[in-house]
């Protein structure tokens, strides 16, 4: 075999982008099928394909990165740019929901009684569970930084502890949000208040679940000795993503929960 004279990663053909696309198609059409025909078959099939894709794609990348050494410094630089671009696109995704919220709330229509929250809507008290959620997410931002510093300082025990704590805080946030949704005195179909509230906070919740998954993968890899003090971009990407989710929550809290009530 010819000797490779550069530091770039020449990737092999992989089926996972295709299976991922199939999963996305099945999940979106399955969602429409659920809404229109109350049948969840296709949606769950799509979700299963998604989980299989995630598992195998992640496994392949771990093999390439950790065991085959393909993630050289220059490759890691590319991964950094990729993650930055991805998070930037996520910022604009959420910007759309904030736009909808402010469009509806800054000059409320006659139909809403020209007031925000609209006449008849009882919003959640921002100083109860939502404030606790803010504290929980801010604390998880601290613990993920603690985990990062522990990795860089070769402190294996504290890395595992801090990362576990971050994941627990993330799951606690999800639990509190689920309870808050269950108890909410308004619904997504109530009008523009419910629509903007549940679409914005719901997509944030989805991102918390994705971020938690990402951190759980990092914890498993940490336990399996995949990270070194110099080479742990998988962890850093998860931490960046987690901070992004945290910042989105702060904007949601200040705009929708606090100002919007």
């Amino acid at each position, binding site marked *: 075999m010819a000797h490779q004279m550069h530091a770039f990663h020449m990737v092999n053909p992989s089926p996972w982008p295709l299976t991922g696309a199939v999963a996305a198609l099945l999940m979106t059409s399955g969602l429409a099928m659920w809404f229109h025909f109350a049948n969840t078959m296709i949606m769950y099939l799509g979700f299963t394909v998604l989980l299989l894709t995630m598992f195998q794609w992640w496994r392949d990348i771990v093999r390439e990165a950790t065991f085959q050494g393909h993630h050289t410094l220059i490759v890691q630089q590319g991964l950094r740019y990729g993650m930055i671009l991805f998070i930037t696109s996520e910022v604009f995704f959420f910007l759309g929901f904030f736009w909808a919220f402010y469009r509806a709330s800054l000059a409320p229509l006659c*139909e809403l*009684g*020209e007031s925000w929250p*609209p006449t*008849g809507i009882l919003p959640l008290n921002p100083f109860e569970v939502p404030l606790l959620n803010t504290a929980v997410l801010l604390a998880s931002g601290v613990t993920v930084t603690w985990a990062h510093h522990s990795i860089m300082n070769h402190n294996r025990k504290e890395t595992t502890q801090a990362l576990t704590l971050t994941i627990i805080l993330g799951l606690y946030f999800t639990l509190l949000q689920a309870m808050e949704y269950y108890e909410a005195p308004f619904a997504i179909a109530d009008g523009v208040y419910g629509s903007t509230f549940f679409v914005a906070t719901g997509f944030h919740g989805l991102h918390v679940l994705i971020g938690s998954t990402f951190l759980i993968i990092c914890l498993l890899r940490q336990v399996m000795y995949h990270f070194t003090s110099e080479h742990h971009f998988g962890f850093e990407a998860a931490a960046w993503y987690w901070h992004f989710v945290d910042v989105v929550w702060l904007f949601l809290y200040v705009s929708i929960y606090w100002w919007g009530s």
Partner: protein
Amino acid sequence: MDEDMKTKIKNYRTAPFDARFPNQNQTRNCRQNYLDFYRCEKKLKSSGQDPYICKWYKLVFTSMCPTEWVKRWDDQRENGTFPGKI
């Protein structure tokens, strides 16, 4: 003042320009005058005064509002579902 208002009502032709609503979209002008009419009537009636001068607001909102909206809001007031304070 009262006499002024009475002459204004007598000589009413259509809604005048209102500096509070400078935009092309006059929805809020219509809505505000609808609210003001019923608020005015409620207030003057409750204090035993003649609500005649409130008629100005009614003339304005009748000029400004689509009749469909007025009908809907009247129905809502009747059913107690009107989203506004009168």
